[in-house]
């Protein structure tokens, strides 16, 4: 039936829909592509000593990672580097097979001539996948043999990875479906040239970008699973340590973490609040600078007040040390000029830390933030000013009734964005200025997640905090967008 339908379509040049088998084939290849990045199904984990977070992809590219915990067995010659090179080679052949399959799946979007050519790829690719699995299995048996011989099963813990079954099943299914697909397309008449519809061609050319986006922006969401497990670095996730929503409840029920959370949220909201409360400063900066008559002076000020924006927070901290540390400028100045012996370390105290952080942020950012408003002022129609002056407006009335309203739309967008980002102050500034004395008041949410998650290794609880923050952040953003649409009739995202 499929074939009967095919012929007239070819003649009239109407685009024929993909066959069912073809879609299954592509899906299987897509699944195989995803599985490459999931450590749970890594067929290359031939020893339990190999880090359980190692995916097939890592196995194929990083010798250091797979042998990280096997230094001693390697040194004692219970296992040999060759066995692991074989393992890497097997993983690489497997990966190559998947890539070949993927090329075929992409080509199968073309016309019949292209489909015919394309149908060979998954065939070759799935065979290569099976070959790669064979090589991995060979390296497993070889490791098992030498280790058993040395009697060191406990030190190396050879392990038959279940991933081999998973990949073998996928490879066989790809093989079968591509054979069927081949059988179907071979009976079709083909065109003179290999061609592909433009929409698919464009999509395939854009796909690498999407792939990278998926890998680094969407795949991390899969990491949210850690929030539901009793997980410590190096553990395996299984039903044994599945704890459901325990950590979510823990966060609010455990008095210590609840206190921490309240403290951190207070810091976060105060710092963001101060930032929002002073968000008019760049406008004032721009408006006042526009009042200066000498354009040379304007350029001079603009040039030098913008520089701090381009240095990192680490350098800002270096400056802070140079100026405010006990052997810094302020103390030296007091000693040398006024004869007051002083060695106060202004950075060590927690006094007014919120204000200090705000001032550093302002020092670094106000010149830069003002640029958008300076550009905005330059863009205001001069006729408006003339008209205002004719109506008798003075200098301040011009500012108040022409300049400020002209800058308001930009300011609104900025304000809404900063309200949407109220929970994310970034961590660099607070990390560099953090010390034992001011930790309680300087720790914002981002820094807290870093401190408990990466430093202390409390993966589940920090993931819970991260998830909540992400969800609240996106909700706030959509609310801000809704407000913007309602008030200004324009969306901000």
């Amino acid at each position, binding site marked *: 039936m499929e074939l009967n339908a095919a012929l007239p379509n070819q003649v009239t040049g109407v685009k024929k829909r993909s066959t069912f088998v073809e879609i299954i084939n592509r899906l299987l290849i897509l699944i195989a592509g995803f599985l490459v*990045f999931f*450590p749970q199904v890594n067929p290359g984990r031939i020893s339990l000593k190999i880090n359980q*977070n*190692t*995916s097939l*992809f890592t196995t194929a590219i*990083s010798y250091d990672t797979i042998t990280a915990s096997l230094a001693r067995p390697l040194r004692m010659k219970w296992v040999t580097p060759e066995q692991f090179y074989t393992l890497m080679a097997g993983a690489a052949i497997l990966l190559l097979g998947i890539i070949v399959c993927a090329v075929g799946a992409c080509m199968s979007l073309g016309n019949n001539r292209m489909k015919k050519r394309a149908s060979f790829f998954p065939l070759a690719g799935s065979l290569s996948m099976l070959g790669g699995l064979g090589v991995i299995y060979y390296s497993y048996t070889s490791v098992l043999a030498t280790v058993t011989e040395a009697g060191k099963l406990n030190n190396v813990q050879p392990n038959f990875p279940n991933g081999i079954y998973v990949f073998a099943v996928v490879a066989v299914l790809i093989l079968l479906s591509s054979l069927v697909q081949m059988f179907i397309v071979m009976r079709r008449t083909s065109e003179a040239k290999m061609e592909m519809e433009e*929409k*698919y061609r*464009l*999509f395939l050319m*854009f796909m690498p*970008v999407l792939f*990278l*986006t998926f890998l*680094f*922006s*969407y795949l*991390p*969401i*899969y*990491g949210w699973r850690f929030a539901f497990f009793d997980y410590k670095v190096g553990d395996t996730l299984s039903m044994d340590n599945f704890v459901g929503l325990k950590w979510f409840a823990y966060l609010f029920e455990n008095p210590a973490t609840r206190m921490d959370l309240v403290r951190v949220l207070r810091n976060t909201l105060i710092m963001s609040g101060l930032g929002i409360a002073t968000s008019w400063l760049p406008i004032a900066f721009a408006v006042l600078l526009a009042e*200066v*008559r000498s354009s040379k*002076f304007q350029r*001079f*000020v603009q*040039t030098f*007040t*913008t*520089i701090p924006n*381009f240095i990192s*927070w*680490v*350098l800002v*901290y*270096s400056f802070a*040390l*140079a*100026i405010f540390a006990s*052997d810094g400028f302020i103390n*030296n100045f007091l000693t040398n*000029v006024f004869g007051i012996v002083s060695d106060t370390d202004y950075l060590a105290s927690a006094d007014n830390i919120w204000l200090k952080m705000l001032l550093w942020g302002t*020092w670094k950012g106000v010149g830069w933030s003002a*640029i*958008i408003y300076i*550009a905005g002022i330059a863009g205001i129609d001069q006729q408006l000013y003339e008209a205002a002056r004719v109506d008798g407006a003075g200098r301040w009335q011009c500012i108040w009734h022409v300049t400020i309203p002209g800058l308001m739309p*930009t300011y609104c*967008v900025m304000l809404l964005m900063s309200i949407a980002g109220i929970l994310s102050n970034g*961590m*660099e500034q607070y990390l560099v200025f953090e010390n034992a004395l001011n930790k309680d008041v300087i720790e914002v949410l*981002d820094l807290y*997640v*870093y401190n408990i998650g*990466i430093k202390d290794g409390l*993966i589940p609880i920090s*993931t819970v905090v991260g*998830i909540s923050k*992400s969800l609240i952040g996106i909700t706030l953003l959509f609310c801000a967008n809704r407000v913007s649409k309602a008030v200004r009739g324009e969306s*901000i995202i």
Partner: protein
Amino acid sequence: MKKNKANIIKRRPIDIVIDTVIIVFFSLFTLICIFPFYYLFINTISDNDLVSRGLINFIPQGIHFSNYVALQNVTDLGSSILVTVARTILGTGLMVVVSAWAGYMVTKQKMWKRSFWYRALVITMYFNAGLVPWYMNMLMLGLTDNFLAYIIPGMVAPYNIILVKTYIESIPASLEESAVIDGASTPRVFRSIIWPLSIPILATIAIFGAVGNWNSFQDSLLLMSNKPQLYTLQHRLYIYLNTYSNLGAAMSSSGGVSNTAIQNMLNTKVVKYTISMVTIIPILVVYPVMQRYFVKGIMLGAVKG
């Protein structure tokens, strides 16, 4: 000032006072902005003994540049500079190429499910899974303790893609059409028409990307914990700033240069200042070039999709 005579006459005394206040204010603020740079610099070129006694406040004394020469003895600094330079060049280059290509592709209305993919790309600017899941993901991909972690994740930068897209949309469509009629393929159109015409915007994203790469600290801190030779310069500086005392030891053990230079360098304060200056200098060098792109660059933060 002379040409504005008419205006000056109209000014009332109160205006003059206000103008003076404004000028004084801006002069002071500018001074505050540049003073730390100046202070650090004069302390790195002045006599080290005077510096350690805290006597160099405004005017350099006993000018010499041996501190900069002696930096070659600071352990691990060389590898950090190498890593940072490499990531700045490679990372920025790839980011620009990918942004240009992606920016061009998303202008193609004919692409299969274009608006869906475009939205999926843009939403990543506002949404992220969180620090720890991101870290676990990098761990899973094998991008920890790996130089590629500096390059690959930064290749797709949604802000920059939107910026390029907006710019390309302003290029007259007829240029592209005529090339297509002459038989140019999509990559050919990109290479011969879109790329050359988008140079202004590509220069903007390149220069801001380069500064971002040079200043990068967080990824090094999070991902390179077991490979100190892959630390970026900012990370290295952060470590030096936080380890006052060990620095002198690290320097004297490495040896190789005349003793006087080492003796001079033993002053950790000077070492910190000098390393800071080395980190700043490239920024100051590209800064005049950057200024030309400011107005376009600030739009980086204010574009909409």
